[in-house]
């Protein structure tokens, strides 16, 4: 039995446990829908429910057939390839543009700072469906609808705000006198930027890039509007999968996505710790 301070009343103790139970319930509420699909993706039957064999932990009831199906299916293979191509290209563009924007916005001589920041962050706030509709009509004029270029540009625009936010956060800890010191040692402004500024804000740049990648990877609304059959990405393929052929391949893909997201999350956390360590010892 846990020892409570002497002055605790019965209500304090009830509150103590109540808070923990409530927190646990919230966690279950958030995680259960995600966790429940994982075992289902190993179902050997084409159902979305736990079979009796699965509940009895019968090895026969589990299989990798839906994963096999994902790998064998040309449509899924195309979707996976597209998702990575679009995601990586969009993340690279967003990282470069977002980093430059953040550096510019951090300068004390930047005019209209608040207004421009708000403008650049707007893709995070404006409803996606509105962005998608706007882009659709705009891109039609330039024949960008149904092309990879169009989709990549659109996703890059969505990713830029994440990069700006993470890079701005690392820049706020950046000591401007380091830049001045670099100049005084004889290096030109671009060289100092490359040798001193970039290495010190690198954790922010990389985590911004990862966020941008995940944003593109998860995104389905813009894809629905802008992508043709050639540009189908994983979320788009899942979307049609849900309507056309209902079987656990979708669950297999979803499980793969969860694993990938978790891996990225761990990377981000590792980067954050590294940056804390670096700046802490500066």
């Amino acid at each position: 039995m846990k020892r409570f301070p002497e002055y605790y009343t019965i209500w304090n103790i009830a509150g103590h446990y109540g808070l923990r139970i409530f927190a646990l319930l919230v966690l279950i509420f958030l995680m259960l829908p995600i966790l429940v699909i994982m075992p289902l993706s190993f179902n050997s039957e084409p159902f979305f429910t736990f079979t009796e064999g699965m509940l009895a932990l019968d090895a026969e009831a589990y299989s990798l057939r839906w994963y096999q199906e994902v790998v064998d299916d040309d449509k899924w293979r195309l979707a996976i390839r597209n998702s990575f191509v679009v995601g990586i290209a969009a993340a690279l563009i967003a990282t470069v543009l977002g980093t430059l924007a953040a550096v510019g916005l951090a300068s004390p001589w930047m005019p209209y700072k608040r207004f421009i920041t708000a403008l650049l962050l707007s893709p995070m706030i404006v409803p996606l469906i509105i962005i998608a509709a706007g882009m659709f009509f705009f891109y039609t004029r330039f024949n960008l609808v149904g092309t990879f270029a169009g989709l990549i540009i659109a996703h890059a625009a969505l990713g830029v705000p994440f990069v700006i936010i993470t890079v701005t956060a690392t820049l706020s800890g950046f000591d401007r006198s380091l830049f001045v010191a670099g100049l005084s040692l004889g290096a030109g402004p671009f060289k100092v930027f490359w040798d001193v500024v970039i290495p010190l804000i690198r954790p922010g740049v990389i985590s911004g890039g990862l966020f941008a990648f995940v944003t593109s990877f998860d995104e389905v609304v813009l894809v629905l509007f802008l992508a043709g059959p050639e540009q189908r990405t994983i979320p788009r393929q899942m979307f049609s999968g849900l309507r056309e052929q209902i079987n656990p391949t979708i669950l297999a893909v979803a499980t793969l996505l969860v694993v990938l997201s978790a891996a990225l999350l761990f990377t981000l956390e590792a980067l954050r710790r590294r940056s804390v360590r670096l700046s802490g010892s500066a």
Partner: protein
Amino acid sequence: MNDLGSDTFLRFDNVKKSYDQKSLVVKGFDMDVEDGEFITLLGPSGSGKTTVLMMLAGFESVTSGDIAIAGKSINRTAPNKRNIGMVFQNYALFPHMTVAENLAYPLTVRKTPKAQIKERVAEYLKLVELSDFGARRPGQLSGGQRQRVALARAMIFEPTLILMDEPLGALDKNLREQMQFEITRLHKQLGFTVIYVTHDQTEALSMSSRIAVFNDGVVQQCAPPAELYERPSNAFVADFIGENNFVPGKVITLEGTTAQVQTDGGTIVAQAVDGLAIGHACRVSIRPEKLFIPPTSHAHDNALTVRFNTRIYVGDFIRYYFKLPDGTDIIVKVLNDLSAPEFADDAEAQLLWLASDSIAFPAG
């Protein structure tokens, strides 16, 4: 632009600076610096010392006037092309590079051959007594060690001019003294010219070949330490450098460099500075350690009667606080030995001093 004397190492010619295009922060700064000098800019906060340094380094533009090195104006030279070393108060070491990489950076930028860089880094690490610390990050060094790395980094590319803006401000007293010694040693050994900014007068007095006292964007006096202390050219300098007593009075006669001054407590004699006029109000400065309380064997030719206020024991000295008849405070420093007298509260006392130890400045 003006005709610039070509043999002066560094010349400020009527340099002015305004940040807001309205008020001048630096008002007509003139100074000639010889090769190898150690010049200190000393002055109250906000008097424009950092601004002068930043203009010299190229990080602030010059509003008007000229800064010239070896007779050539550098107003239009980019900061990274000026070849001026700089030491910052917060060290400004690159935290992601090792100590050796920090030192190598200015050489790498100048495309020095690799082998030579290695040699020079080792040499300068030795110079600042950090030979075993080359592989460490700045974060793993103590404050004094970081400052020495910053010093070595500012010197390693052999600039002829090194600027230091309160480089020891972040260090504790002991370390500061040690670093003062270190900087003086390196300056003597390597012969570069230093422009140094500090708040600390002891530091300025002990290190500099000349001190420029700043106030309100104007140099009040630029002179070697002893001259600044013994012969301040105006009341601001007399007050700012060291401690001083000011006795108010009126000039009654002026003969060469001697003035007779009428005060509430009697007539006294003092050295006169330019600008003093008969019949005008003046202030006579006397340093606390130049005042004597009788009985004394010291020679004197001035005396004033004062009232005892209090005395404070500060170890090697005893500080006496007296009041003049008009209420002005007078401080006297007496060596702490058996002769240090005791007074009753409000007791009358005499203070004695030499006319040559006091200076009369115009009042106001």
